[in-house]
Structures are given as C-alpha cells and as structure tokens.
C-alpha cells in the first residue's frame, strides 16, 4: 500500500483518511522530516504566542541598558539574549520578528499558489490563445532578475506588508502555473477524463472532480519548497531597508542593525540569522519530504 501511494502519488483516487494515515506513518520513519515539522511548529507557535512567550515588551527602549551581552557571556539575568542598541530586549524582538517572516512567507506562497493554480488549470485544460498569452507572460516574468525587480518596485511603491506579499507573489505564481499547466494538459488526455466528458460532464465538473485533485500534490510541494525561499527573500529585503518599516521587528531588519555592531555586539547579527536559517531549514526539510512522498518527479524544483 505504502509503495503504491509513493509511486502513483496522484493518478489514483485514494481515500483521504487512508492517505493521511500513510503520510503520518512515513513521517514517523523519517527523522529529517520530523525535525522539519518540529521546527516549523515551534516557529509558528513562537509567532502566534509571541505576547505570552516574549519576556519583555519588544518596543520598550532604555538608554541605560544598551547592547547588554547575552546571559551566558556576562549578561544580566533578565536579558536572555542581551539587548540591542536602543536597549530593547533582544529575545523578545526575535520572537516578535518571526511574525513578519511567517506572514509574508505564508501569504506569498498562498496568494501565488491560488493565482498559479487557477491560471495553470485554465491554460492547461482549455489551451488555445489564452494558453499562448499566459505562457508568454510567464516567460517575461521569469526573464527578470527577481531581487532587482522587487527592489525597484518596493522602492517606488513604498514598503509595507501587503506590498511585500504581492511583489513576492508576482514571481512564484509562474512556477505553480507552469507545473499545474503541464499536469492539467496530461490529465486532459486521460481516458477517464474523456469518459467523464462523453458521459456529459461539464468542464467545471471535470476540472473540479478530476483535474483539480490530481494537481494538488505539486501545488503543495511547491508551496512548501518555496516557503523557505520567500522567508530568505523577505529577510533580504528587510536587511536592505525595504521590508516592513521599523520599529516593527523583522529578522532581516535586526540583522542589518547588527551589522553596525559587529565589533562590539556579536549577538545582534548572529541570532536573527540563526533564526532565519533554522526556519528555512525546517521548511525545506518538510518540503523535501512532501516531495518524496507525493511526487518524486518534481526533484528539480
């Protein structure tokens, strides 16, 4: 049974319960996937429970306690990870910083996933002129160096949470659309789709009942694999001062503050980077596992 779901991934309808059970059982045997799940759950928990978990107010400044080192290197016991250049508790800022990264990453992946899924389904299933035009648009999007375009757009429109999410979605919807289109094209030619058509099934019904369930695996895989990339890009933009504006803590923003204190306060640049790395690592481990279980053909993503 396990082997079947592994190879087929999509083309056979398997009961949802059965599939969830087989996913769980493969998760239990894969320690790297477990680690990924653990990291992501921890970060999501930190972001949602930030007001409870953070030991202090992340915005409270005090010039009498600037750049205090972490607890274990001669720090004061109330600042576990030390303080920043304005005397704000660093651990609290780090915990709150996870919010922006996760929100931007998750919404970018979802928004672009929705757009890409719809475009891919329509172009792949119906083909024709729309298909041709959309694929040309996709070529155009992919012909831009992404970071550069994102920088220029944000600089002109002005940075905000929504702008970040939209700008990042502008690039990855294409990746979903291409993969979904290819799958939809293939499924369109399958006998069971032709049978459904011959039996009088409408296009809407065929798309929803037969095509959509079969393209969900790649969509989930792309979403999980690109979550990490989005978090890295978001923190890069914040690092350059084009992310969510201060005083809202973002990991990239904290990192860029730390850059000016490399000589006297190593922790300010170190911890945000560690936070980004581990979150992205968790997302990637999760994505790799989902790909191996759901659809190993997508390894080049």
């Amino acid at each position, binding site marked *: 049974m396990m082997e079947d779901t592994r190879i087929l991934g999509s083309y056979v309808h398997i009961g949802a319960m059965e599939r969830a059970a087989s996913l769980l059982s493969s998760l239990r045997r894969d320690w*790297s996937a477990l680690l990924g799940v653990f990291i992501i759950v921890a970060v999501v928990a930190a972001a949602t429970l930030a007001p409870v978990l953070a030991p202090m107010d992340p915005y409270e400044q005090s010039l009498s306690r600037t750049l205090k080192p972490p607890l274990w290197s001669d720090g004061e016991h109330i600042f576990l990870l030390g303080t920043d250049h304005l005397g704000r508790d660093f651990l609290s800022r780090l915990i709150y910083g996870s919010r922006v990264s996760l929100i931007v990453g998750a919404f970018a992946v979802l928004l672009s996933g929705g757009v890409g899924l719809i475009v891919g389904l329509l172009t792949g299933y119906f083909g024709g002129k729309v298909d041709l035009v959309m694929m040309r648009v996709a*070529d*155009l999007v992919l*012909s*831009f*160096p*992404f*970071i*550069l*375009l994102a*920088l*220029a*757009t944000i*600089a*002109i*429109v002005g940075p905000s949470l929504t702008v970040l999410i939209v700008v990042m979605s502008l690039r990855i919807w294409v990746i979903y659309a291409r993969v979904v289109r290819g799958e939809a094209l293939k499924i369109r030619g399958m006998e069971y789709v032709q049978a459904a058509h011959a039996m009088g099934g409408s296009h809407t019904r065929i798309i929803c009942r037969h095509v959509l369930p079969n393209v969900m695996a790649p969509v989930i895989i792309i979403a999980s694999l690109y979550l*990490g990339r989005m978090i*890295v890009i978001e*923190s*890069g933009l914040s*690092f*350059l*001062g*084009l992310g969510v504006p201060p005083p809202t803590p973002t990991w990239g923003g904290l*990192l860029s503050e*730390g*850059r000016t204190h*490399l*000589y006297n306060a*190593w922790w300010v*640049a*170190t911890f*945000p*980077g560690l936070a*980004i*790395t*581990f979150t*992205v*690592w968790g*997302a*990637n*481990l999760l994505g*790799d596992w989902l790909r191996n279980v759901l659809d190993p053909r997508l*390894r*080049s993503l």
Partner: protein
Amino acid sequence: MFHAILLIKCVLVVVFLLLHITGDPTAIIAGPDATADDIVRLRTLMGFDQPLWVQYGKFFLGAVQGDFGKSFEYGESALALVFEHLPASFELAISAFVLSVVIGVPLGCLAAFRENSLFDRSFIGTTVFVQAVPDFWLGIMMITFFSVHLGILPSFGRGSWTHFLMPAFAASTYHLARLGRLMRSQMLETLRQDFILTARAKGLPETMVVMGHALKNSAIPIVTVMGLDLGILLGGTVIVETVFAWPGAGRLVVQAIANRDFPVVQAVVFLLASVFVLINLAVDLIYAYLDPRIEYS
C-alpha cells in the same frame, strides 16, 4: 533569437512602467521634503505632464540609443555609470559561479557513485542545511570571524584576490548546494539507465563508463540549471555586494534607490534583465547542441 529581442522590448516597457506604477512619478522623484511648488516645476521639467504614450515614446527612443537620462546624483549618463560598475559585478558573479560548479559538481557525482554511504548521507544533510543559510548572513558571519576576530581577510571593497574569497563564497553557497544535489540525483538516474548496464557488460573499465557515458548524459539537465544559476548570479548579487561594499551594479542600485536616483535604477534593471535574457538564450542554444533531439523553429 527573435524571442529574445521581443523579451528585451518587454523588459523596456516594464522598466518604463515601473516608475509610473503609482500614477505620478514626480512626487517619488522629488522625495518627501519637496514643496508643492517644487513638484509642479519638476513635473513640467521632466515632462511628466505629457500623455503616457508620449513619455514612453521619448523613453524608448532614448533607450535604444543608450540614453536613460542623467543620474541625478552624479550628473553623468546613467547607462555609462552602470557600465562602469558592471565589471565588478560580473567578476563576483562569475567567480561565485565557478566556485559552485567546481565544488558542487564533483561532490555531487562522488555522492552518487557511493549512494547511501556515510559520505552520501552527510552530503545530502549538509546541502539541505546550506541551502537554508541566507547568503548575506553568511557574509556577515564570515566578516565577524575572518576580519574582526582573526583579521586575516579584508572585510570590504575590491582589490587583491583576498577581497574575492568571502563575497564569492557567500554568493555561491546556495547555488553550490543546489547544483550538488541536482548533480547527485541526475547522476543516480543516469547510472540506472540500460546503456550504463550495456557499457559495464561489455567490459568497459569503470572510469570509461563514468567519464564517457554517465557524465555526458547527466550533463544536459545540469547545464540548464547552471545557466539559470549564472543568470541569477549575474542579475542579483545585490545583497552580497551591499554586505561587502563591493563596488558593483547591485550596490549601485541599492544606493540609487536610497538617493531616489531613478534613471540609474532603470538603467541597472534594464541592463541586468537583458543579460539575464541573453544567458537564457545561450542556455537554450547549448541545450540544443548537447541534445540534438531538441529543435528550435
């Protein structure tokens, strides 16, 4: 070829529209400190009061002659300014690319030849982790360690070969890890093919099997990835350049954005996007050469 020219034209349209997304670019160029009077004067001075298509016509005619306007900051031609900064960017991008190929490809092959060995497993584990490390953070950490603590490498600027080491390595890690992983899985797939079995069955020595058959047939998909990587690197070592104060086009664009120097921003985006398009064209051509089954009409 025609496709590439069309794409570059589209790039030009996007670069033009970029400044007009918010409707009126005058306020953006003038900045937050400008008075209402300033804005009115600037609008007529820059011609932003004319219809959009007239403005685009002027922009297009200028652009095809290599004229993106003068840099507000430096007073010289924006395009010339970008050209001055391109060599530094390309130097960094190409050294990062070479680094990722020279390290990633052999390690990936080695891991594939010893599938499931300790080396293979640690290779996979390491590459997955390395792909998660943001290049700019790695750069900062390297500066902290090698420049601040040990004082053995210069922390910023361009000059001797020692200036290269940290930026090139930081920019290459993600691509190195990804390329290595793809090389490994591609090689594994190739080694499972029938012609490898045939080659072994006819008594070919293992080195010949690997060099003559496996490597060649794994090359095709890898070349595409390498091309994409080179394009990405050439088009955007922006953040790494900023971290190491590397005097390239990426750092130029970050500074231009901070100074509201939009002709320079437009010129950089246009030039790097064009380079990106050309690299992709080259990849397509190489692909067709490596695999004659692919034809381009």
